[in-house]
């Protein structure tokens, strides 16, 4: 298996070959009618399969799909913002000099374009990006833990996002603009995921052996909670309200507890959880 440093030049070459311009890549329609199209594949909609979903007619489901895609683009955008900042802070360190830093420049460039792309869609058609509700509280880290936590967060936002990208990019039933945004995002993310998986594996091999049992258990607990919390981003009360549904917070709770939704989250997380188990950061599949 190639190391991250060995992968980096190939990924940089691919980034240059596949470079695209965010300002000319799309033909943006003047406006979008929320109830006139599917904007997210129905089976990906957060409450698909619940009693609330069953009670909606097709127009209401399409309207919900519009606000769900705006939410999806919003929280991926907010996930990419600290990612860009974190990647910038990791450039030109002693352990990233050379091809890794060269690739991090492409990584940052592509993530910046994704944020522009998502922001343009949300602002143009929904009038806003759904704000995130995160507040970062100060905490102490074991040696290497902050970098490992950073790349875990990167993989979670990118792996979950890519699950959705893959489903939507070839779905002929959804609006073609949304399918294209998902396709473009997926092509860049495939490289980011390849790099991130290998780089995180190397960080874990370097630092984890020095962690004591308590530090390792604490990290594993945090990682499960972070993944559970990340899934919570998909169940936004503001989305349900904007789609005309009453009791948005109650619908969120329903979706988080519903057995069908849990099965979906477990299936969509399978690859990611398997990877975390493989590198020793999870011991068993979490309850999602």
């Amino acid at each position, binding site marked *: 298996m190639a190391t991250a440093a060995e992968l980096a030049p190939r990924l940089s070459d691919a980034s240059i070959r596949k470079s695209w311009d965010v300002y000319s890549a799309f033909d943006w329609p003047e406006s979008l009618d929320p109830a006139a199209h599917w904007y997210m594949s129905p089976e990906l909609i957060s409450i698909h399969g619940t009693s609330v979903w069953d009670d909606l007619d097709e127009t209401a489901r399409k309207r919900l799909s519009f606000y769900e895609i705006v939410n999806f683009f919003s929280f991926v955008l907010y996930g990419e913002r600290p990612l860009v900042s974190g990647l910038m802070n990791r450039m030109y360190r002693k352990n990233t000099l050379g091809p890794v830093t060269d690739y991090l420049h492409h990584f940052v460039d592509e993530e910046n374009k994704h944020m522009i792309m998502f922001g343009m869609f949300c602002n143009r058609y929904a009038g806003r990006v759904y*704000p995130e*509700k*995160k*507040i970062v*509280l100060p*905490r102490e880290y074991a040696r290497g833990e902050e970098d490992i936590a950073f790349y875990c967060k990167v993989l979670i936002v990118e792996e979950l996002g890519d699950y959705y990208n893959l489903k939507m990019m070839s779905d002929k039933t959804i609006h073609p603009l949304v399918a294209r945004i998902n396709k473009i995002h997926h092509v860049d993310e495939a490289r980011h995921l390849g790099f991130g998986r290998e780089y995180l594996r190397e960080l874990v091999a370097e630092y984890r052996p020095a962690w004591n049992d308590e530090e390792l258990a604490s990290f594993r607990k945090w990682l499960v909670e972070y993944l*559970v919390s990340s899934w*919570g981003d998909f169940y936004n009360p503001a989305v349900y309200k904007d789609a005309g549904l009453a009791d948005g*917070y109650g619908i*969120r709770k329903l979706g988080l507890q519903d057995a069908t939704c849990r099965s979906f989250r477990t299936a969509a997380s399978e690859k990611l959880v398997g990877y975390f188990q493989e590198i020793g950061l999870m011991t068993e599949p979490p309850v999602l």
Partner: protein
Amino acid sequence: MDEKRIRQDLREWILDRSGAPAERLSRDDMPILEEGLLSSLDVVEFILFIESLREAEVDVEAIEPDVFTSIDTLVDAFFPDIRSGLPA
């Protein structure tokens, strides 16, 4: 919803989420974050719960982490119009 009910709902949510015994939050000036009753990840969920109580979104950029110090500071920050002068 009156202030007493809001304080009760906030207390119940925090105790339920943290699994802590009721005496850890028997007064409304007792520390929440300092005592580790809530983590950064819990705060995300807690803000959504607060939004459901006040029926309005919270502007996260307009608040500092110290609003989560105690139930008193939470009521001051998120329910400023409902203060009735009830003792904590």
